[in-house]
């Protein structure tokens, strides 16, 4: 490594062109190659953040991809990811500054998972693999670079979570139920990238259950602890991560819709107890639809619950990823099959 390269990396770190980790300096030659891979010219406008009078140009996204360490081969996926992040329904700026400390969590599904070499088995939620690590980092850097009004706004996350550095989850190329993106209306044969603003994952351990129902009850209980965020507004949701060993039990008894309905039925808590411990504001807003004396679900509707199949065989763990309540929409975009 040359002294000038080290100086450039330090220069980026010291002047706010970083997520806190060393970056690949965005040399124009590298950015041009990334622009070509993404199918853009440098000055193409790829999104706007109207609240802040910001226009995002393709060169901003391409420079970010270079800095995150992405390969140019990821270009078509990175293009769709940027468009998803800048979709006004996603609320990128809110995700950046909220006290909720949310990440821009990336879900990759379909043939592109194998084509680009994403890890979808061992440590699927935190894989030490270039595709997962850099694509997840690119999403967080887009949030950090584009969501702060050029640096004017401050991040207010109370505790945040490690996914704000990188959080990319890839589904198995071959799934028991239909692929993840079919839950957002895309055809099964598609490749897709889906973004959600989320909290960190909660692990669900059940090594001794004999039935899929018992596993789903464990998952439902994980969604229903007092501290989960969605009790009051209920405008977020959850992604349930199903690795092979738990899936082997579940799919014998449930299809995806049945599993969703079962979890919805089981993940309940006494509204009165939620009020007692301070999880429901008093007096509640009409939007919150609070019914004292009734059991309360953390979901307003079944569409707030999705499943993704990934993770390694040989351990009876699942996971629940709670969504941030301020980003009401998951954004799912098709990626060209490579």
């Amino acid at each position, binding site marked *: 490594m040359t002294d*000038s390269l080290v*100086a*450039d990396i330090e*220069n*980026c770190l010291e*002047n*706010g*062109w*970083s997520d*806190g980790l060393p970056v690949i*300096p*965005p*040399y*124009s030659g590298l*950015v041009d190659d990334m622009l070509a891979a993404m199918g853009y010219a440098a000055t193409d406008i790829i999104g706007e*953040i*109207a*609240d*802040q*009078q*910001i*226009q*995002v*140009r393709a*060169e*901003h996204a*391409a*420079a*970010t991809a*270079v*800095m995150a360490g992405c390969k140019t081969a990821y270009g078509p996926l990175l293009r769709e990811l940027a468009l998803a992040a800048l979709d006004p329904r996603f*609320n990128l700026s*809110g995700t950046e500054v*909220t*006290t909720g400390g949310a990440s821009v969590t990336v879900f990759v599904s379909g043939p592109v998972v194998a084509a680009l070499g994403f890890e979808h088995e061992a440590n699927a939620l935190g894989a030490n693999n270039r595709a997962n690590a850099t694509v997840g980092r690119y999403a967080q*850097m887009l949030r950090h*670079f*584009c969501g*702060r*009004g*050029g*640096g*004017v706004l*401050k*991040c*207010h996350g109370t505790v945040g979570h490690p996914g704000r550095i990188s959080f990319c989850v890839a589904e198995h190329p071959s799934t028991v139920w239909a692929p993840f993106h079919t839950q957002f209306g895309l055809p099964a044969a598609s490749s897709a990238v889906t973004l959600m603003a989320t909290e960190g994952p909660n692990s669900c351990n059940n090594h001794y259950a004999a039935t899929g129902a018992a596993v789903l009850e464990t998952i439902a209980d994980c969604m229903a602890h007092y501290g989960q965020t969605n009790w*009051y507004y209920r405008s977020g949701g959850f992604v349930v991560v199903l690795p092979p060993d738990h899936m082997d039990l579940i799919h014998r008894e449930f299809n995806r819709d049945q599993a969703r309905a079962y979890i919805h039925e089981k993940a309940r808590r006494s509204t009165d107890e939620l009020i007692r411990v301070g999880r429901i*504001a008093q007096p509640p*807003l009409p939007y919150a639809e609070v019914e004292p004396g009734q059991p309360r679900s953390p979901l307003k509707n079944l569409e707030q619950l999705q499943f993704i199949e990934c993770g390694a065989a040989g351990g009876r763990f699942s996971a629940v990823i709670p969504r941030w309540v*301020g*980003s009401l929409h998951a954004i799912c975009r098709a990626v060209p099959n490579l």
Partner: protein
Amino acid sequence: MSQTISDGIPARRLTSCGDRSCEWLVDPIPRPAPAAITITLQPRQPRVTFIDHSKPNSIIILGHAAEILRERGVTVADDILVKPDASQRMPEAMLQRLASEPGLVLCGVSD
């Protein structure tokens, strides 16, 4: 209080210099390009307008604040305006109305 990366505005331009020449690095950060606006630094009228941002208890706290100000002889607008969603931008009509407000505008109370 600790220093974080969010404490400063990121540099607008960085250069990379080799032995013979320098080049600009490509800026990854989009910057606001606001249309020219007139900012009133000092209220033209001695009155206060409150805006609630719909988070729990915000309107109660603002109501108490309004009472305290009135007791101290400050004119406070009769109605507390309500921004429907704390995580979303306020409606354009509300923004325009507040932009022309001659008094002091105080927004919301966080979590």
